[in-house]
């Protein structure tokens, strides 16, 4: 009886918070039929936005995965002064408003910013171009891999790594053959979260992109642009594509994941 109530509450909550908005998105997208929705997401601007989003994710996600694992190793395996600071710093993007992140990049890469003047002197455009969008995306999605990997690194301890060492493995061999296999599911889950965040990021990217239509507009910026310009079908159809991307990522993850309970 109690379990039934619990289930009702849990599922009800999910339906309210998750399924409700999601189904509205799908419904609004296809309200006027499949054709208009299809046309809306196949305009050159829309295609460019999706492509740009994928390009950004394709760079930010691997970069964050490598940095994330490196950071986690540093935090767990190497006591060093300032470790607590690093640990706190990693969480900063979760606490900081993405808009603030965007403006921080302004200060660094702006025309008169610390690096900005040098970079623009060398003909390199960071702000309002792909690099700043990648940086902003990477910034806001950096915690996920670290936060997934740190606890499991702590949990597995150093015994296996030390055993590998005494058996002749170099640091890299130890990582590749022992540490990584032990953390790979957490890394994978971190990658999924990072990807989801990269695909869906808005605030920081909106600040540093300059929102040049068809040039620096990511999928989420495109959605908001469509919405702001009363193109409801366009906005919701693009949202559906974004949602589908996220679902594909999650499904891939679930397919790859080993069945529960095997060693």
């Amino acid at each position, binding site marked *: 009886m109690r379990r039934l109530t619990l289930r009702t509450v849990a599922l009800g909550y999910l339906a309210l918070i998750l399924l409700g908005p999601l189904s509205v998105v799908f419904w609004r997208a296809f309200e006027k039929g499949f054709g208009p929705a299809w046309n809306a997401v196949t305009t050159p601007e829309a295609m460019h936005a999706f492509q740009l989003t994928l390009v950004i994710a394709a760079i930010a996600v691997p970069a964050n995965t490598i940095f994330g694992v490196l950071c986690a190793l540093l935090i767990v*395996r190497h006591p060093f002064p300032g470790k607590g600071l690093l640990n706190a710093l990693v969480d900063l993007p979760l606490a900081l408003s993405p808009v603030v992140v965007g403006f921080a990049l302004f200060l660094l890469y702006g025309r008169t910013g610390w690096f900005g003047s040098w970079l623009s002197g060398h003909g390199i455009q960071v702000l*309002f171009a792909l690099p700043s969008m990648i940086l902003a995306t990477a910034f806001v999605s950096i915690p996920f891999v670290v936060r997934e990997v740190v606890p499991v690194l702590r949990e597995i301890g150093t015994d296996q790594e030390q055993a590998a060492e005494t058996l002749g493995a170099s640091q890299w061999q130890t990582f590749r053959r022992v540490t990584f296999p032990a953390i790979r599911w957490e890394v994978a889950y971190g990658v999924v979260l990072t990807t989801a965040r990269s695909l869906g990021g808005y605030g920081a990217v909106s*600040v540093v992109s300059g929102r040049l*239509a068809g040039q620096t507009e990511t999928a989420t910026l495109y959605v908001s642009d469509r919405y*702001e310009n009363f193109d409801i079908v366009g906005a919701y159809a693009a949202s559906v594509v974004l949602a589908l991307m996220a679902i594909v990522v999650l499904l891939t993850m679930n397919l790859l994941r080993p069945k529960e309970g095997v060693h």
Partner: protein
Amino acid sequence: MPRLARPLTLLAAAFLVALPTLAASAAGKSANLTLVAYSTPKASYDQIIPAFEATPEGSGVTFGTSYGASGTQAAAVIAGLKADVVNLSLQPDMTNLVNAGIVSGSWSSKRQSRYHGMVTNSIVVFVVRSGNPKKIRGWNDLLKPGVDVITPNPFTSGGARWNVMAAYGAWRKAGLTHKQAVANLTKLFRHVSVQDTSARNALQTFLSGKGDVLLSYENEAYAAKKLGQPIEYHSPARTILIENPVAVTKTTANPVQAAAFVSYLFTPAAQKLFANNGYRPVVKSVFKQYTSVFPTRNLTIFNITDRLLGGWKKAQPQFFDPKTGIMAKIEAQVGGVTG
């Protein structure tokens, strides 16, 4: 783990090195113009740009566009957003670009001197729900108990500054002292429930059902009404004339094409397209064709340069200095954002 750190660090470094390279390849060579504008004229430009491209001056010119809150856009251009033509919602944002060395100090006198660089006009209006259920017609109606007002944040949105100056000016014109008008302004902002970053976002908020009245550009209200939204709009008896500046940047790589585009904006053809999207044309001959759409009779439309307001040069620091301005103090009292 120094030996483990090395390969990973190298990979990481490779990414950092790769970024600028990607940047270089991303910045294409195409000789196109970038128009950076405030949030509302997108619909107009979507028609004007193809029209310009069809003219001899515009043939071969392609466009990139960026629309957003006026203050934010100006900040982006100052930070390095490439722009050939800027169209902002009010003069102080343009002045910021002048101070940053991006726009020539003579922008308002050199080109189209007859119009002082102002490409469109509008007025501040009240957008209300169909049938005006709360009977909101004058500025004092906004201060009535239970009236929920929507206006964007004056520290990011140009439209919001026009709203503030319209309210203040109207009350001064009605005979209130500076002190009384500021007191009313404070009261007004206590009625504001949402302060979006841009005029367009504020309109979205209002259309989503929030608020009883939206302070807005006439052209925004016009566009929303034309889209069949269940709203109507009225001009209060006293309101301000909104003037939106346009300029070619000094930093443009295509000064000839950019100047040609700006010139085109003042042609009757372009002005008509603006008018069709709710803007009051600055070109008198065109405006005359639209008097039924843009009422002037029985309205006192005052200018920012009015003696009581003193022009943007005086009003901008007096009201919108982020630290000492009247609005900064009011926002502090009502808990709004001034950043």
